[in-house]
């Protein structure tokens, strides 16, 4: 079975919250693929498919959340914690900016983990707190998830603080305000945006590639 067909079946099982069948299929595939191959062959395309279906109004955020968590659990249980090729990756961070709405961040964290990324999870911080940590930890790519417009606009302040500290960090943003205003990510000074978790993961990959140049 090719990757597209397999990941479609896997995505269907995830969306139906059929953990047992998803796990059975996942375990079966671990016999034929290395951990990194399995992520690229099954997990990433399945999550991309689910993200696309959400964009098209075919699935709900609750299903996206549950699917991401199942993938995260499977990867944590069956694949090694860290692969050698990830150790030298530029550092990645994720945060909420003074916002208690954590769902988006949790979904992105699950998608990142399920896609093999390692990252610092800063939880909820104000712009000055986050800027300080990003500089201190030498973060290269920072993801920020927002629900409230106010939080989205605070990214401007964060960007100013990071520029003042001469941080080269690239900022990837996502969340409802950016879906309702497609120009907002540029207005707040972000480097990229993602309309769903897999787009955010793709944006991270692009930023990482740019940093290698």
């Amino acid at each position, binding site marked *: 079975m090719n990757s597209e067909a397999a990941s479609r079946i896997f995505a269907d099982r995830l969306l139906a919250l059929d953990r047992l069948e998803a796990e059975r299929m996942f375990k079966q595939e671990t016999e034929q693929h290395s951990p990194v191959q399995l992520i690229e062959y099954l997990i990433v395309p399945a999550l991309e498919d689910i993200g696309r279906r959400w964009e098209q109004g075919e699935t709900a955020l609750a*299903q996206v959340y*549950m699917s991401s968590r199942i993938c995260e659990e499977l990867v944590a249980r069956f694949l090694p914690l860290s692969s050698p090729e990830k150790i030298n990756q530029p550092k990645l961070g994720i945060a909420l900016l003074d916002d208690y709405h954590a769902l988006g961040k949790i979904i992105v964290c699950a998608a990142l983990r399920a896609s093999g990324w390692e990252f610092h999870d800063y939880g909820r911080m104000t712009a000055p707190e986050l800027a300080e940590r990003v500089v201190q930890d030498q973060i290269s790519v920072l993801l920020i998830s927002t629900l409230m417009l106010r939080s989205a606009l605070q990214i401007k302040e964060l960007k100013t603080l990071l520029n003042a500290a001469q941080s080269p960090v690239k900022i990837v943003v996502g969340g409802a305000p950016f879906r309702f205003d497609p120009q907002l990510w540029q207005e707040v000074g972000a480097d990229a945006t993602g309309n769903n978790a897999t787009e955010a993961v793709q944006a991270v990959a692009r930023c990482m590639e740019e940093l290698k140049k």
Partner: protein
Amino acid sequence: MTASTMTSMERVLTTLSHKEPDRVPLFLLLTMHGAKELGLSIRDYFSKPDQVIEAQIRMRTKYRHDCFYPIQYGAADFEAFGGEILWFEDGPPNSGESIIKTAKDILTLKVPKIQDIPSLQRTLAVISGLKERSAEAVPIVGVVIGAFSLPVMQMGFPAYIELLYNEPDLLKRLMAINQEFCVAWANAQFQAGATAVGYFEPLASPDLVPADLYHQTGLPVAQYCLSHFTGPSCVHLASGRCLPLIDNFVSLGAAAVGVSALEDLAMLKAACKGRISIIGNLNGITMRTWTATEAEEEVKKVIKTAAAGGGFILSDNHGEIPWQVEEETLLAISEAVHQWGRYS
């Protein structure tokens, strides 16, 4: 009565009966802007009902729109359960830490008594004051957070999703508490003088919860709540898409539905025509950067698509105008509605 002498109340009631009034009714759902109006911080502003009454009256005069909106902040319903409110200088008060962290917290949760909650009492005082001042000429639109959506604040969205899928008994218990509170809170607003109450239920949106799961869980809760309200209601999904649910909302008996800027307004109009009125659907997020010309174009576009035959109130799509939207933009929206919204 002639068309030109319609009060806001007459204009709104006419459109809700799916007839054309003198012009398209305009609801500018302004909450925090009252603080700007009086030169106060948002927190200070909401602390005294007289201030909110004064600002609501001033803003209606300034913007020439068709309702009073006495709501203080959506998180007040969470505050009633003992939740913490986070205040900001430049945005709506938010709900803080969850109050439900374990199953035991649901099992021991009690229905708050409306008379014991200062923030709710302040809102009721605002409604009463506006009722006295409006002499039945202006609709007063109250708000409750839908019983099915309130747990997002009570326990956080991730934990609530897990509950929805995995804990039917705990869900049933939580819904029983929330719907009892929701009905009591809505009916207290009707008793204080609210003309209608918006039932804000973002989780009804198929963007957030699958339609089949909503039909099994949230819809029966909405049926209970709306059937026990002592006055008319509108279902609002706070920017969430709702087209697949229009038949459900009609069956609930809602007078109107608040629709998203992300939806096809023409399709919504076709689905709603003659059955349920539409409230919407200006994009509040982009509104903060509109020029006067852009505001006029947005208003014209919405009126052209949805105003014919009545059954339409022009408003934002979220149920609250963002703090960042400037007075000039609101004036431009109002002017455009007065210029382009005439039916005759």
